[in-house]
């Protein structure tokens, strides 16, 4: 092996991530699925780490969800994205960080397309000017918010109140990391570690005391895959993909799954209930499922936030076994209490998978 050659190849998969001054854009769907995740990102970055994160209420969808569902052409998406860049330029920022993996892939794809076809960029600039009299500069740095948490992982580890260690046995928790397909599978050099060995979540897990589970279908899609799920006739395919992943990770007895995509945690979480209904099989210990968390929720747990403030009661799979292992204190009675301890009613619990 020529060491220098390997170093050169690996250096292409390293990513320069500025430490501060980011223009933050939210996902279309994350706030419906796991509402505290994005809130937790701004909380951690601004209030815990003291970073400058700016966001504007004028931000709209990036169009990526419709583009990947085959319902709008790329030129339309490009003009929407051009407007987002114009908002960033008007706010005086140069570093752009989307919370959504598909947005991240969408921005990366568009910037790369404009680099290859500059005449297309000129046309989109004209279209944007005609549509809303705006002009834009392209972002100097593009990073996903998980890249930022990865970049700050050691700062978070220093402030950690809980580590990813089993309090009872003292062993590191076995965590499955699942990376959204649009993170690096389209443009491997845009992610930390490329498509094959993305280190973005693995770095967080190792830094916070856990051990990463390697399993055969580690890089398989979560099952969402946009048109796999949105076209109802394909929904079995979506479910079967998720099933394949769980069958593959089951022998390694993971304690939790952490993801960096809006769709993945939702499908890995909810499909566990559907699989339990259809096959009677659950993948956690004692009839529970495997808790699925977003990286912001995991960071929040590590930093000692109240699990119910992190919105963990909105997960289908019970997270209590993980909280018990980590030694996180929680009030079971407060699980379904809303703001100011207002009763927001308990959901009906399924019989096929253990939940609280």
């Amino acid at each position, binding site marked *: 092996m020529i060491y220098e050659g390997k170093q050169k190849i690996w250096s292409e998969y390293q990513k320069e991530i500025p430490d501060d001054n980011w223009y933050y854009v939210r996902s279309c769907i994350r706030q419906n699925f796991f509402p505290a995740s994005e809130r937790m990102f701004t909380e951690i970055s601004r209030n815990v780490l003291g970073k400058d994160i700016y966001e504007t209420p004028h931000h709209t969808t990036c169009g990526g969800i419709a583009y990947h569902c085959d319902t709008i052409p790329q030129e339309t998406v490009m003009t929407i994205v051009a407007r987002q860049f114009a908002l960033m330029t008007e706010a005086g920022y140069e570093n752009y960080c989307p919370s959504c993996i598909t947005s991240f892939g969408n921005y990366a794809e568009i910037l790369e397309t404009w680099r290859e076809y500059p005449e297309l960029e000129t046309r989109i600039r004209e279209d944007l000017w005609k549509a809303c009299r705006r002009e834009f500069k392209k972002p100097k740095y593009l990073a996903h918010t998980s890249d930022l948490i990865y970049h700050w992982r050691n700062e978070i580890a220093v402030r950690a109140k809980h580590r990813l260690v089993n309090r009872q046995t003292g062993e590191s928790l076995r965590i499955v990391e699942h990376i959204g397909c649009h993170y690096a599978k389209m443009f491997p050099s845009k992610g930390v570690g490329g498509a094959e060995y993305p280190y973005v979540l693995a770095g967080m897990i190792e830094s916070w005391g856990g051990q990463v589970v390697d399993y055969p279908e580690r890089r398989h899609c979560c099952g969402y895959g946009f048109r796999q799920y949105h076209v*109802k006739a394909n*929904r*079995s*395919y979506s479910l*079967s993909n998720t*099933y*394949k992943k769980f069958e593959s990770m089951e022998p390694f007895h993971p304690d939790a799954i952490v993801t960096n995509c809006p769709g993945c945690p939702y499908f890995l979480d909810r499909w566990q209930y559907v*699989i339990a209904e*259809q096959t009677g099989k659950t993948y956690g210990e004692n009839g529970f499922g495997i808790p699925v968390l977003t990286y912001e929720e995991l960071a929040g747990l590590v930093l000692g936030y109240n699990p119910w403030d992190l919105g963990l009661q909105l997960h289908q799979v019970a997270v209590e076994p993980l909280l018990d292992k980590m030694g996180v204190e929680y009030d079971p009675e407060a699980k379904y209490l809303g703001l100011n301890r207002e009763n927001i009613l308990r959901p009906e619990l399924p019989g096929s998978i253990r939940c609280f």
Partner: protein
Amino acid sequence: MTDFGFTLSCSSTLDLGKVDNDKFEELCRLEPGAGVCIGCGSCSAVCPSARLSGMSVRKVLLAVRRGRNVREMLQCCMLCGKCTIVCPRGINTRNLILSICKLYDD
């Protein structure tokens, strides 16, 4: 069980490490042509039975390679021999089909 309107589909992943090669090896002894097939599909293209029954020599041979029981797939073969005429590798497909039937009937 709740009816979601969709169900789990079995995985079609092949674990080639677990494939039983015995039948295929025996077939190669009975008809050495089995080993030289390039899977071009000419046999299936000319098969008069294919359009009615889904019979396909190419598919049958692939299934034998993967250790599956193919006896039923051959039910509709009429042994007309058109596949033998078109085979670019000169395989005696009629003997191949008869050998496969013999293998699975024994």
